[in-house]
């Protein structure tokens, strides 16, 4: 799988997330040191937005973050009523931005699905088996979140 984990591909996902924060006029998101993760044991936070990828490469990319981070963003955006639906919508929107940017960047190379949002439930995240994913930790204000790129 190593040869598929190309730097450029992963950078597109990282930049997409940065782009999302920029779009909302929020503070810049800090990118931490990427590390490897056994795909058989995915890690998820409270809310996760997953986009499926097929075409030249197969697998998925997900963004997962704690509820507090989403709530903070919603409040920063002027939303008064923070419900589960709102939180799901927001993480879905983040995943959608990543998907949109990726579509633009990769063109016909990849087919990128509509995001799926899950709350908790790591077992619902299905990654390609027996490979390693790249985890990119991100930090916004005090909140940690991660992008996980799992490509075969």
């Amino acid at each position, binding site marked *: *799988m*190593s040869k598929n*984990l*190309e*730097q450029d591909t*992963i*950078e597109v996902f*990282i930049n997409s997330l940065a782009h999302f924060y920029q779009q909302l006029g929020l503070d810049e998101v*800090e*990118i*931490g*040191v*990427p*590390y*490897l993760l056994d795909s058989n044991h995915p890690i998820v936070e409270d809310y996760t937005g997953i986009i499926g990828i097929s*075409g*030249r490469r197969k697998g998925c990319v997900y963004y997962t973050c704690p509820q507090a981070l989403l709530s903070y963003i919603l409040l920063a955006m002027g939303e008064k009523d923070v419900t589960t639906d709102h939180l799901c919508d927001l993480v879905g929107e983040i995943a959608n931005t990543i998907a949109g940017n990726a579509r633009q960047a990769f*063109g*016909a*190379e990849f*087919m990128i699905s509509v995001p799926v949002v899950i709350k908790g439930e790591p077992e619902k995240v299905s990654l390609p088996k027996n490979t*390693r994913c*790249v*985890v*990119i*930790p991100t930090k916004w204000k005090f909140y940690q979140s991660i992008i996980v790129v799992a490509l075969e």
Partner: protein
Amino acid sequence: MFFARNFGKYRAIVISVAMFIILDLGVLGLNFYISSQIASDAVNVNLAGRQRMLSQKSVKALLDYQNDLAQGASGADAYQEMLSSVALFDRTLQAFHSGGYTSDATGQEIFLAAVETPISIAVVEESLAIWKPIRRDFSRLERESNSGRPLLSHLVDIAKQNNLTLLKLMNDLTNDLESVAKQKSDTLRWIQASAITLAILNFFLILFHFIGQLRSSDAVAEFARKETQEILLTVREGLLLLDSNLIIGSQYSESVKAIFGDRDFAGMSFRSLLHNLVVGQDMTTTEEYIKLLLNEQVKENLIGSLNPLSDVEVSLPQANGGYAVKHLSFRFNRTIEDGKISHILVTVLDITETVALRQSLEAARNQQGLHTDALKKLAHLDSTTLSAFLSRTEQDLHAINDTLKDEAAEPQGYNAKLQNCLRIVHRVKGDAGALDLLQIATAAHHFEDQLQILQKTEGLQGSDFLPLTLSLNDFLQLIAELREISDLLQNLQPVQVVAESGAVTTEQIPLPLDEQPIMRLAKRIAQENDKAISVTFDAEEAAVLSAEQRILVQASVIQLVRNAVVHGVESAEVRLLAGKPPTGTIDVRVSLEADGLRVSVRDDGQGLNLKRLREQAEAKGLYSREVLDGFSRTRVMGLIFEPGFSTAAEANEHAGRGIGMDLVRTNVNKMKGRIRISNQPRRYCEISFLIPTSQLEDSLVAEAV
């Protein structure tokens, strides 16, 4: 030549048509000729008929004149009529005989040709024989108008006597001339009929011959068309022709549609075909290349390498709205007609599969190379040692991953991460080198390179680590592959018979230091550095070490030996000049002392050069000159154990990163040991460390039990 060139295959038809025209013209000419003959024959027949009439008219006028005279009249009218009839008869008969002029019914002078047929000639001769005496008598009558009755009576008698004969002769002449005319008109009819028959035959010949020829050539053309169509439908390559304006021709192979989508390409420009597929610069270059090809002065095979589209990756729109990435290979060839370039034949080949195959072959070859190389190396190794090494390396790499994962405050945190990673990977490199696993050693070396690039990066950020993380993944992949081979080899080796029972692990068997890898490494490094060495090894006492300690000691000894070969032992020439034997000696010794176990590596090389150590530390910016001047001898020697310190001019696999000695220090610290350096410049250098008895107790106890 001109004819053949200009009419070519139409020569036969042109000849046939020309013959048809010549035939018709001939018939026409003949027709004119014979018609005029018939016309003159008709005049002859008329005049011959008139001779019949004149013979009777003359006799009648003669008799009338005689009557008139007998009745006492003048008879002038009859006389005149008789004279004119006789004159005309005579003139005409003369003309029939030898050709000459006479007057026709209207009094016009006409030329009469002499008769030609034997019958007519005989008739005319006979008539003249009869006529000539009669004519003489008439002349006499005319001359001697008053000669009297006797001449007249004589004339009347002769006239009566010959009248019927002359009439018959003139009749015969008329009939003969008529039959001649009839014969001629028959000939004419016959000629006309034959000529028209010939013309019709010629016409049909042309018709059948050329219809046949046209049909067969049409059939050939149709067959050729079908064959061409079949080729164009079947051929895998996209084939199309470009004219000098780079416009696509009407015929192209079906594959063009398969490659570029189902459209009509005839009359389309080549540029629009490649629109959105090839970048602008390439398109321009391609057009320039084709224009070069169209230039008669340029040799085709000389510019083949200029083709910018010999392997081009394109994204082609698909029916489902997506895109397919294909590799296409375009070839351009001139098509020559009459010695001139008429078109450019474009051959487009979808080489996607070939490229994929080539790539996978390349990967397979690399993999095979890797495996073969690895297999050779691995086959030499004891499977337990190898397995232990791979496990340890995997653990080390996971430790690196954990280091990366640890949250760290930048930038000091990042630097600590890097330093830690360097230390681990350097150990991996040392171990791999000792086991002669060059692939791993190289991978580790590259990983070190990346770490050091990051160390030098200003304003280091988390995302800068991405290439490193990916390399780590590659590294883990390499280890996994080697592990597969190692497992395979392990299966091939005979099962170890173990006394008692229980699983055998490296942790449970007390072993001395592994001598062979260290010897091998030392030899290899010496060879690569063009030095001669001999290593003595006395490490029996290492058996008291715990498994963990043994790993640390082994790794440290590797670094110290490496250091001794690279930095300590001089080249043979230098050694000879210094009065030493050309072969350097390195002694590795593990000995029990009163307060612990001493591990020492001693070389008879150039020793540590304190002055150079100071300079190096200053150059590296580790300490200022003033601080260094304040350092004791021992402290200066201790510099070699500081991270980032190396006196080697440039980093290679064996030295120069300033990590090896740092690793020794870290290992010794882990065992709560102490390092000692004894050094005599130009004579020797011995670096040793003591592992205190307290640290050995557990294993000693274990041994005792």
